[in-house]
């Protein structure tokens, strides 16, 4: 494994174009959590022609719903949820200006196509290593949809959050290529 690339949000086209599948990255800066119910509301808001409660242009959404924070900690255990459930919503957010997504599991063709068209990137984080994941979060606050509990949108300040590039802006797919590389028979 090559040395991880350090990236700091927000993302630009230039930064996205520098990433290719299989790259290990350490992300610092601000990222936003959002999963099933939050995505549904974001899309309803866009469809109604209204402004989103958070400006996601140039930003990264992390598909995650953390465990409650213990007193004195910014956040509880946090790791990625499975991304395909957000596939119906992702292309519209990418067209709006979202530049990156963090989750786990493969994406649909419309999402991969939208990533190519808008120059965006999809990172895989380590599912089930959520106590470790919480250590990279320095600050967290709910910025929208508080009533959704774990599904609320949170603004996280992260430092060296580890992830791997799964789909790059060229349409590459680490899940397919990694599997082909290690498949036997």
């Amino acid at each position, binding site marked *: 494994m090559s040395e991880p690339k350090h990236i700091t949000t927000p993302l630009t086209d230039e930064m996205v174009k520098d990433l290719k599948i299989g790259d290990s990255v350490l992300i610092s800066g601000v990222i936003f959590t959002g999963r099933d119910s939050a995505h549904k509301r974001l899309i309803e808001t866009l469809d109604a022609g209204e402004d989103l409660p958070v400006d996601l242009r140039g930003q990264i959404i992390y598909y995650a719903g953390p*465990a409650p924070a*213990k007193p004195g900690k910014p956040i*509880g255990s946090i790791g990625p949820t499975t991304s395909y459930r957000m596939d119906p919503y992702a292309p519209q957010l990418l067209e709006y200006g979202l530049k990156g997504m963090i989750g*786990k599991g*493969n994406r649909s063709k419309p999402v991969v196509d939208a990533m190519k068209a808008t120059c965006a990137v999809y990172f*895989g984080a*380590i599912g089930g290593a959520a*106590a*470790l994941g919480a250590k990279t979060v320095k600050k967290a606050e709910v910025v929208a949809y508080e009533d959704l509990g*774990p599904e609320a949108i949170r603004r996280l300040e992260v430092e060296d959050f580890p992830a791997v590039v799964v789909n790059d802006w060229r349409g590459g797919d680490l899940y397919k290529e990694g599997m082909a590389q290690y498949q036997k028979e």
Partner: protein
Amino acid sequence: MRELHVSKITEAVKTLCMDANFYLGKDVEGRLKECLEQEESPTGKDVLRKIIENIDIGKDERAPLCQDTGYAVFFVELGQELRIIGGDFNESINEGVRQGYEDGYLRKSVVSDPIERKNTKDNTPAIINVDIVPGDKLKITIAPKGGGSENMSEVRMMAPAAGVEGVIEFVVDRVKRSGANPCPPVVVGVGIGGTFDKCAQLAKRALLREIGSVHVNPFYAELEAELLEKVNKLGIGPQGFGGRCTALAVHIEVHPCHIASFPVSVNMQCHVARHKEVIL
């Protein structure tokens, strides 16, 4: 007749909910370390190292290993010579879940209605499976189940003619189609036989078996080994990034079935293969 007050059950369940989410079994941790030795993919090795580091943090800080602290699934063996006193048995378990998930800062992941989808905010109701057994003890096993791996599970009503080849094809294909979604390396629970509903439960019960244990029937023990080998040849690897270690174990449970039926089920379990038990 021996008596057991419901408050004792609630107290035990509360502790089980927390311990199961903070402390992973030694068998799982041991197998993960073996996988780290064997893994050929550098990215796969890095993932396994982080998964093992996560186990230590969970232990040291009493932090949930995964943010998905699961649907609280219980397998209970109730001794027929034990009398539960002081209240409702099912409610005593639900109250333990309520307290354990609140006091342990565990995520509440249950919605009251599958269409309406409003969070119950205390992770209840639990799924409680009860078997009446000889004796005067109460054995409670909790297996908190995450949604990501549960969603990759399946029951198939096959034709008896499909035979063992049909089982192999279905199980390997199920793991292949799951890819990175269930957080590999996974434990694959396989149920063969029973009825539609019984078969699904066999697969879930198979997940409770200790990793490293083999089926008591040598035929199924061999089938478990063959399935594990085939699954690990898929190349999915840790977190699906490519590699040798896709599954930690394949466990099979079997049950007699109808002359016309051949149900086979797969219950996928992520590497946070949690279960804890207590005997009261």
